[in-house]
């Protein structure tokens, strides 16, 4: 049975603004799943709260739409319990790097085999336009009245500083490339990050689709080797007239949580059943 993109369609109405960069990301997620021949009930999406985080509602799939900032721990344990299912986390930049910053650090450290797709629009969309951790310096909002002066958090550099084994950047304006990245991220064995440049048409008049189009370029294997961590860190810091997209770093050698865990090696937890005689033995040990 082939899977079609329509299989992922549902009839729940979408609350994003017309023209929002979230739409092409939604498409890319669906297309990547279709390309991977996964069916809606085979994949689990996990999200927090924000505009991006509504995504799972807009397609057919298993989903857990939890709390703002808390998608990663939920997703980690879903994967531990059910360690055959592809688990995809959808987050906003505030969601993932602000409220959820600590989980981001430690999910990377765990190297659990899940894929994190961050819709990075440099702004808190749903709460109406405050700065996010990735907002560029100088951006003026009703809260940051003198413009942001905090250093923007570069998610790629941080992930690399934690030796994340798969670090990529996509652009919402290039659906095909993004689809390919997401697909590879899902198949990658280990924690994979796809940070996506996503224009917010309502609150960011600077970083429009065009602004990005004028700047992004693809890292092509051949020209760029995504196997050197220091080179990846250096590349991740490039931002300005030219903004690289693509896979910055890929390290298939690093063992994932699942590969390490002595218990998960025998297959998903959800398929095992308790042998009550073991409990009896434990009780005996208290005599």
């Amino acid at each position: 049975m082939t899977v079609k993109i329509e299989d992922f369609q549902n009839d729940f109405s979408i609350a994003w603004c017309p023209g929002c960069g979230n739409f092409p990301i939604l498409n890319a997620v669906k297309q990547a799943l279709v390309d991977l021949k996964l069916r809606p009930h085979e994949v689990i999406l996990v999200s927090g709260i924000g505009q991006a985080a509504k995504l799972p509602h807009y397609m057919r799939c298993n989903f857990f739409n939890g709390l703002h900032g808390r998608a990663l721990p939920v997703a980690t344990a879903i994967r531990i319990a059910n360690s055959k299912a592809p688990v995809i986390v959808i987050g906003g930049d505030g969601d993932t790097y602000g409220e959820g910053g600590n989980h981001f650090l430690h999910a990377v450290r765990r190297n659990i085999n899940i894929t994190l797709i961050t819709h990075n629009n440099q702004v808190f969309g749903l709460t109406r336009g405050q700065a996010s951790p990735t907002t560029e310096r100088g951006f003026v909002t009703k809260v940051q009245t003198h413009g942001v002066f905090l250093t923007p958090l570069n998610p790629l550099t941080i992930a690399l500083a934690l030796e994340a084994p798969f670090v990529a950047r996509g652009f919402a304006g290039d659906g095909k490339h993004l689809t390919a990245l997401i697909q590879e991220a899902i198949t990658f064995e280990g924690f994979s990050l796809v940070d996506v440049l996503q224009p917010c048409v309502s609150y960011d008049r600077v970083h429009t689709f065009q602004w990005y189009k004028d700047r992004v370029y693809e890292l092509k294997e051949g020209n760029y080797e995504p196997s050197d961590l220091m080179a990846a860190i250096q590349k991740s810091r490039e931002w300005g007239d030219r903004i690289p997209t693509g896979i910055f770093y890929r390290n298939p050698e690093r063992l994932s949580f699942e590969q390490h865990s002595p218990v998960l090696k025998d297959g998903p937890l959800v398929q095992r059943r308790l042998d009550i005689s073991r409990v009896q033995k434990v009780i005996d040990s208290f005599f």
Partner: protein
Amino acid sequence: MADERNIMVAGAAGQGMQTIGFILGKVMIRAGFEVFAMQDNESRIRGGHNFFQIRISKKPVRASSTPLHVLIALNQESIERHSKEVDPSGIIIFDSEKCQVSGEDGRFFGLPLERLAIEEGGNRIFENSVATGATLAFLGLDFQKLEDFLKAFFAEKADTVEGNLKAAMAGYDAVVKKKDAFAELRINPEKSEPKMFISGHEAVAIGALAAGCQFMSAYPMSPSTSIMMYLAGKADDFDMVVEQAEDEIAAINLAIGASYGGVRSMTATSGGGFSLMVEAFGLAGVSETPLVLVEAQRPGPATGLPTRTEQADLLFVLHASQGEFPRVILAPGTAREAFYDTIKAFDLAEKYQVPVVLLTDQFLADSYFAESRFDLSDVHIDRHLLEEKKAKALKAYKRYEITDSGVSPRAIPTAFGLEVVADSHEHDEYGHITEDPHMRKQMVDKRARKMKGLAGELGPPERIGNQKSEFLLVGWGSTYGAMAEAIEILNKQGISVGGVRLRDLWPFPTEQMTEILSDGQKWAAVENNATGQLARLIQMETQKKPEGMILKYDGRPFMPGEIVENFRKEMVGK
């Protein structure tokens, strides 16, 4: 011959009180005694002052008691702090070459503990064994019991067994030589069935194993950490993953994720960690994800007294998180109850798809109880999931279907070809975000209906003693043992007192408590807190006010005698 003895091992952190206390407890229980043991530790790794207190008795005991009969004082400070608690007929064992005592007190019994350890056992680390041997001798007990246990306990380390035994024997012999001087201290065990020697949190942990829990996430926090530690040691054998989280917010979200993902899961923390879990506690509520959470209370506010005990989180846990949703609160009073309540917690969590809190505290957590064998024959695991046949027959799967019971069909994602959703917003029956006022109201009502079913699952308040007494003591959780014993003592003193103990706290047994409290008995709440939280809850639920409060909030558990004393002050004459 007397019915019971109280033994204390006191010293600085790092001196091994826990090991010697544990060994003594085990030996006593194997000798046929009933045993209760509590721990009193400072929040530090070395130094300071800690003790381990063991009560051995011919009848069941579930609280500590005074006075002490044997004090093993491992340093000078222990002598100074605790001598006054030792009965005139008692004995104070100390290192005669390292500590000093003044005066002509017949209770002091100096032994060169360290020297004997080195000379006999070959290493100073065996000094505690010297004291253990001496204690056995004072109580008139057979050395064989200790020998058997040590051989089993240190099974793999022959050297250690050897050293310990020799040292212990030296201590034993030293006392036996002075045999008659301390004849009063001797005690004979009754012959009784073999019993488990188990702490409250060990019981929670093995309850989780018996319930088929396969995932546990936590961030270390006293006094809850013992659960994670125990389970980590068993994880491989039980197809379980125990994951130390980066913080408590992750811990609870991990537990929720594992539950949604399809396995039974739990988390454990203390009040401070629970504070951080409050938001996700509501997530479990609204997403209707089963969750078992142990809240091991310690004195607050904030960091408070990290290694001590209190019962001051009841109203917090009951009302935690924004909005309104059903939850269950169970407060076991003994290790046995902790075991069965944990199993019940997992069952209720999945049957009603609600968060279930086990409210323990440091005293229950770290105290050792003598318990008859936990019986597994009644333990059956029912996951209460949507059946495959039904799933396959569904036209559309409504994860949040509106039902009379309030419980909707739950499935595991990726099984059965269904898409399973969970949502933190108000949602429609399919789990999609809704802002519709009617759907909102229906969903609130649906969730609230679970309270009715839950109420039917819980046990009634337990009556203790005479139901027609003049006075009534009302308590919950870990004060159970001390309260029950205080009631016994008071009645012996000629004061007519009965008791009511709440173990299943929420949904509250409103009708039953109203009935009980309508009898015109004067009642007082017995609580390890400063504001009488159960009393306040009772007021809220039954509009009955207590005549008195017996409260303790200095970070230490009640002893029966304290309740008796406070009762006489508070209530007699009222």
